[in-house]
C-alpha cells in the first residue's frame, strides 16, 4: 500500500492503519530499534510504542515520508530506552558503539542548555548532513540515523569495511569542526 493511503487510514481512524504500517514498516522500525538497543525484546517494545505514537500524532500530522517519520519515532523510543537502561558501554548494541564513535565530535565539559540548543543542534546536524557529498551522506545517515553496523553498510554498498570506516572517521572530523564553527561545542 502506498504511504499516502496508509496516512489516509490514520486520518480516517481506521484500525487497518496499524496493520498496514506494521506490514510495510515493521521490519524497518524493528531493525532501527534493534540496532540501538541490542535486544529483540526492547526492539519489539519500541516498535509497539511507535505504532501507538503514530496513531496519536496522525492527525494532526501528515508525514511526507512515512518511513522517516516512523523511523524517527522508533529512534526516540530506542534512545530513551538505551539511556534509561544505562547501556552506554560496549556490548549494548550498535547504539553503544555509535555513541563511542560520536564522542570524537563532542569534547567533554561542553555545556548545552537543553531544549532550545538541542533543537539548534538538530538543525545544525541536518544542515551539515545535507551538505555532504552523496556517498558520505548515505553512509553517515545509515550509520548514525539508522545505526546500521559498519559491516552491513559496507556489504550493501559494495565498499570495503576500512573504506567505510575511514569515510565515517573523516565525516565525524568534519562534523566536529562544523559544530565548533556553529558554536555548539
Amino acid at each position, binding site marked *: 500500500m502506498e504511504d499516502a493511503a496508509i496516512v489516509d487510514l490514520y486520518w480516517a481512524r481506521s484500525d487497518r492503519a496499524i496493520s498496514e504500517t506494521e506490514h510495510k514498516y515493521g521490519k524497518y522500525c524493528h531493525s532501527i530499534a534493534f540496532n540501538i538497543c541490542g535486544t529483540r525484546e526492547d526492539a519489539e517494545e519500541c516498535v509497539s510504542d511507535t505504532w501507538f505514537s503514530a496513531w496519536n500524532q496522525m492527525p494532526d500530522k501528515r508525514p511526507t515520508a512515512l518511513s522517516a517519520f516512523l523511523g524517527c519515532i522508533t529512534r526516540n523510543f530506542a534512545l530513551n530506552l538505551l539511556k534509561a537502561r544505562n547501556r*552506554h558501554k560496549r556490548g549494548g548494541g550498535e547504539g553503544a558503539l555509535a*555513541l563511542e564513535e560520536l564522542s570524537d565530535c563532542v569534547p567533554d565539559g561542553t555545556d548545552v542548555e537543553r531544549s532550545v540548543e538541542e533543537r539548534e543542534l538538530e538543525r545544525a546536524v*541536518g544542515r551539515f548532513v545535507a551538505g555532504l557529498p552523496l556517498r558520505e551522506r548515505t553512509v553517515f*545517515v545509515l550509520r548514525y*540515523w*539508522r545505526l546500521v553496523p559498519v559491516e552491513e553498510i559496507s556489504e550493501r554498498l559494495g565498499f570495503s569495511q576500512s573504506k567505510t570506516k575511514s569515510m565515517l572517521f573523516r565525516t565525524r572530523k568534519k562534523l566536529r569542526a562544523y559544530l565548533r564553527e556553529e558554536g555548539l561545542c
Partner: protein
Amino acid sequence: MLDAYSLLRAMNGIREEDIVMADKHFDSPKHVRSRTKRMVTLALAAALILALGAGAWALFFSMDHRVPEPEESFRIHWEESPSGYIEWKNVGLAVTFPETEESRAVEFRPGWLPEEMASLQDDAWASRLTAERLCFEGGADFVPAYDDMTQPMLIESFAMSQFNQGGALLLLDYTAGAVTEETWVDRNVDVLYFSASIHFDANPEHDLPERTLVQNYVLLSNPEAGWVVRIGGELDLETLLEVARNLEIRETGEILRYEDFTDHFALFNAGAG
C-alpha cells in the same frame, strides 16, 4: 552537556529526503553487491556478479564504461570534414557519466611530475596541460623516449554536462585492458584507470618493425561538482596515477551546461602533433 548521546539524538534533524535516499540505496535488493556474490555458486558468479556488481557500483560510481561492438559508430564533430563530422568505428572503450545539468569548470596544476618533465612544472593553473614538446626532436627539452605519435602526458578537464544525452569519452583504435574503478575518499573523486594498446605488424616497405604502442589513462571525476579530469599518455600507469594523486584541482566559478558544447564526445587518445 553536549555528549555523544545528545548528538546521536540530534541526528533526528537529518532531513527526510536524506533518510529516504539512504534507505533507498541500502534496502533496494538490486543494490546488494557482495551479499549476492556469496549466495551464488562460483560457476554462476562470473556472469551474475558482473551484472549485479556493475549495477550496484554504478549507483555510487560516477563513471560507466563499456566496450562497443566493432561496427558501432559514433558521430563526432570534426571541422576538417566537409560534412562537419565523422563516423568513428573501432572504439575500444566508451565512458559515460550521469546526466548533469550544471558542471563546475575546473583548472589544475601538477603537484608532482616525473623528473624528465620538470620543465613543465610551474605555479600556473591550466585546463589543459600538454607535454607534447617533449616528443618532438629539435625542441629545447626533447626527451628521446617519447618520439612516437602519442605523447608522454596530456591532462585535460571536461564537464559531465557535455556528455549528456548519449555523449561519451571514447578511446579510438586502441584496445583497453582491465579497467580499474576506485574512489579516493580523501580527494572526493571517483577514479577509473586502464592501459590501452595497439599492435602494428612489421612494414618492410617503410622499414618499420613490428611494434605495440601503449597508452595509459587515469580519469578523475567529481559527481557533485560535475567535472572530469583525464590524465593520459605514454607514461606508465603508476607514474600517471602518482601525477593524478598529486594534481591540485580548483573550481573556476564558471558553470558549464550541455548547450555550451558543440560536440558531445571527447577522445581519450593523447595524440601529439
